[in-house]
């Protein structure tokens, strides 16, 4: 029987549901619109950003209320992801993210524990692609290439556009499978005070003393002369401060970071390894000889180069410059301490500057000793100078590629949520904005974006570097290193002995090479596990072509180049 009362009850309910839906949709759209505006400038149009964010919302729907646990090292890019992107992701998808920012050493330890003991610590890590040789040999990370084709197809952003990434080489194994996804990238470049290097009196004084022009050092001999020249010299900063300058900046505290001061390609800059990109073949910049993808030795006696004359030269120069030309406190600094130090205005040059630190405000803010009266930086970055063993065709420097990595024991919905979060952090919607915060681009569309190109002066040459084909000579640790976490730990502890004087450079490297070989011999890896060469006389290996290289006694002729000429070689 028809009842008005009942009819109105249903009508009210219907209106309420419709109104609520309308309110929710509007609120939801307001969320999307808020983030569309926030993520300006972007390489996508506003409508394209809207579509991309709506895709994330649709895919996140089924995981609403869940939490993704991720972790990354303490650099500005990741702090920004933690502060902004977790919020955006939660508002858009309803999925919460706990993005823990920790030291790189602790991160390596955590991911190692998860991979080796099966403990579920995090769903996803931003793990440097330096570990690619470990991941491919252990087979305990999700093969993202296969995942995207298979179980993860439905969760893979149609706008991900892998071809837009600057370089996926570091995250692929020997067969080309993609095991990681780059999240942030930064290089190690030469940093210097352009204003000091172009000051007429300074130039004249330098030429008078050394007989050649002050400029960007092409080799270590020139770097050394420039370091000596500036150390103790009185210099002026644009903000009016007068300083006694140092010709060099580095760090030397016994810590995990002293390990990567060396594994991040210091030996390749000296010329320890062989020719061939990305890492040198058959001997790479860790001094490891690899034959048919099998590591066969680090010590010269096994065909490696870690205790060869070139490596001794590399460590000796590091020690000598730290002692003579860097601030005395540098011996007690870690990489986080040294990272922004050049912005204090008393450093003339730095051979090994991680460019991620150049996004710190102190390098850009008005009134800083390293910012001109026009508000533009008075510093520049340039290619790193190379040591006397270096030859054309070798890698020049290091590039860090922090990459999303999903451990094997992260399954099903946890894996899908983690993958959505990773893709969100590298989406075209957010990438330009993220670059402006942390200066660690991973996309071509970021470094080619008109806003970035028009404002490239802010990064002192970094944009030109990333846009240049030369950038491929800056590579991270490659496929050869069979167990990055275990081996890099050795470098930290043994190199420290040379810094404290407990061992000579030669003694420390001999110990390191022996220990590295010992650890490699104990590894039981699923694929391409190390198999050491039998020992032979050092002279045998040193007399063979390529690395390990015989001693070069003579100092190389110092060479410099004008920065303005050099920047043209970066071709854009």
């Amino acid at each position, binding site marked *: 029987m028809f009842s008005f009362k009942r009819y109105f009850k249903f009508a009210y309910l219907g209106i309420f549901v419709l109104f609520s839906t309308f309110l929710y949709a509007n609120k939801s759209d307001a969320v999307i619109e808020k983030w569309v505006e926030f993520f300006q400038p972007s390489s996508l149009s506003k409508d394209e950003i809207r579509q991309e964010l709506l895709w994330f919302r649709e895919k996140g729907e089924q995981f609403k209320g869940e939490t993704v646990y991720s972790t990354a090292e303490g650099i500005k890019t990741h702090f920004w992801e933690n502060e902004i992107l977790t919020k955006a992701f939660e508002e858009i998808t309803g999925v919460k993210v706990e993005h823990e920012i920790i030291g790189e*050493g602790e991160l*390596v*330890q955590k991911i*190692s*524990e998860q*991979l*080796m*003991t*099966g*403990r*579920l610590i995090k769903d996803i890590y931003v793990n440097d692609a330096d570990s690619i040789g470990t991941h491919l040999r252990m087979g305990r990370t999700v093969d993202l290439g296969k995942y995207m084709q298979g179980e993860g197809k439905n969760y893979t952003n149609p706008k991900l556009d892998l071809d837009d990434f600057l370089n996926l080489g570091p995250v692929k194994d020997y067969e080309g499978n993609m095991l990681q996804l780059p999240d942030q990238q930064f290089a190690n470049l030469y940093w210097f005070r352009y204003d000091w290097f172009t000051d007429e009196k300074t130039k004249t004084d330098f030429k008078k003393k050394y007989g050649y022009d002050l400029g960007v050092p092409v080799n270590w001999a020139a770097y050394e002369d420039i370091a000596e020249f500036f150390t103790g010299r009185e210099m002026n900063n644009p903000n009016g401060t007068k300083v006694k300058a140092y010709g060099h900046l580095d760090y030397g505290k016994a810590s*995990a970071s002293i390990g990567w001061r060396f594994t991040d390609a210091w030996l390749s800059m000296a010329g320890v390894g062989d020719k061939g990109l990305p890492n040198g073949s058959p001997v790479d910049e860790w001094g490891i000889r690899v034959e048919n993808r099998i590591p066969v030795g680090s010590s010269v006696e096994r065909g490696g180069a870690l205790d060869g004359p070139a490596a001794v030269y590399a460590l000796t120069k590091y020690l000598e410059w730290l002692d003579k030309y860097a601030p005395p406190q540098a011996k007690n600094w870690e990489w986080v301490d040294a990272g922004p130090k050049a912005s204090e205005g008393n450093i003339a040059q730095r051979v090994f500057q991680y460019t991620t630190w150049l996004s710190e405000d102190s390098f850009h803010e008005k009134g800083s000793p390293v910012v001109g009266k026009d508000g533009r930086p008075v510093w520049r970055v340039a290619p790193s100078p190379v040591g006397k063993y270096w030859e054309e065709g070798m890698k020049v420097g290091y590039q860090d590629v922090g990459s999303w990595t999903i451990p*094997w*024991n*992260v*399954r*099903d*919905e*946890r*894996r899908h949520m983690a993958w959505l979060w990773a893709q969100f952090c590298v989406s075209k919607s957010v990438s330009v904005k993220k670059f402006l915060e942390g200066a660690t681009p991973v996309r071509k569309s970021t470094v080619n974006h008109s806003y970035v190109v028009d404002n490239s002066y802010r990064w002192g040459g970094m944009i030109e570097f990333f846009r240049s084909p030369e950038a491929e000579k800056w590579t991270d640790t490659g496929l050869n290193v069979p*167990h990055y*976490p*275990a081996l890099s*730990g*050795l470098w*930290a*502890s043994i190199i420290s002995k040379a810094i404290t004087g407990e061992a000579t450079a030669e003694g420390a490297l001999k110990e390191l090479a022996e220990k590295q070989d010992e*650890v490699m011999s*104990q*590894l*039981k890896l699923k694929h391409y596990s190390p198999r050491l060469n039998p020992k032979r006389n050092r002279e045998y290996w040193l007399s063979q072509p390529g690395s390990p290289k015989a001693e070069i006694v003579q100092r190389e002729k110092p060479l410099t180049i004008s920065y303005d000429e050099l920047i043209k070689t970066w071709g854009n």
Partner: protein
Amino acid sequence: MKIVLFLVLAFNIFCKNIDVTFTDQEWYPFIYTEGGVPKGMHIDLVRDALNNLGYNPNFIMYPSRRGLVLLGAGQVDALVSLPYSEQYSNLYFPNGADKDTESEYRIMQVDQALINYRDSNYKYKGDLSTIPAPVRLIFGMEDLGAILEDKKIPVEYVRADEQNFKKIMRDKNGSIVTTTMIAEKYFEESTYRQHMKIQAVPITSQSYFLAFSKSNSKLSEDEKLKIWEEIKRLREDYVYMLQVYARY
């Protein structure tokens, strides 16, 4: 005289033999034997901690329950490794071992995974009472078994994980609880991989300890604490732990 006394004391400390029992069940990569030699991450940590303090550890393999009985009776000095449980009131655990959080004195934290027959479409979200029965465990996991039985879930015990994997394939029902590492090892075989599913959320995460006997006075309270502290120091040593992980 003082020197002589010191030497005698030092001799006593530095030559103390410690009998440490470990299970005969293969528990790779934590505890197992290779050619009769005890190996694994837990063994390495305990051996190195004891050696560093000047002890001479003697590892003796026993079936789990037998090892516990001998430890309770004081016929061995220690057991590697055991999560805390109220039922072990005759054993010494470090302070705080009874807490649910990670203990600072643990050898390691170990996750246990839940495995089901794939067709069941079951998804574990943290509620133990929903776990498909029977739950198949191995001996030594009686504390977890007791919790499940409290929730009226039938539990079955066997000596080795392999038996449980075979049973679940045969019966096409129920669950297995084992470490992620063991589960993954079995999943390398396509038969298991196709028919079974490892749940995304681990069922437990427990701190495992070096437990001492209360019935034997070979080690003082202070000496036990120093051993747990040495285990902690090693576990927090970045370089050392990465070497340990890399070996397995």
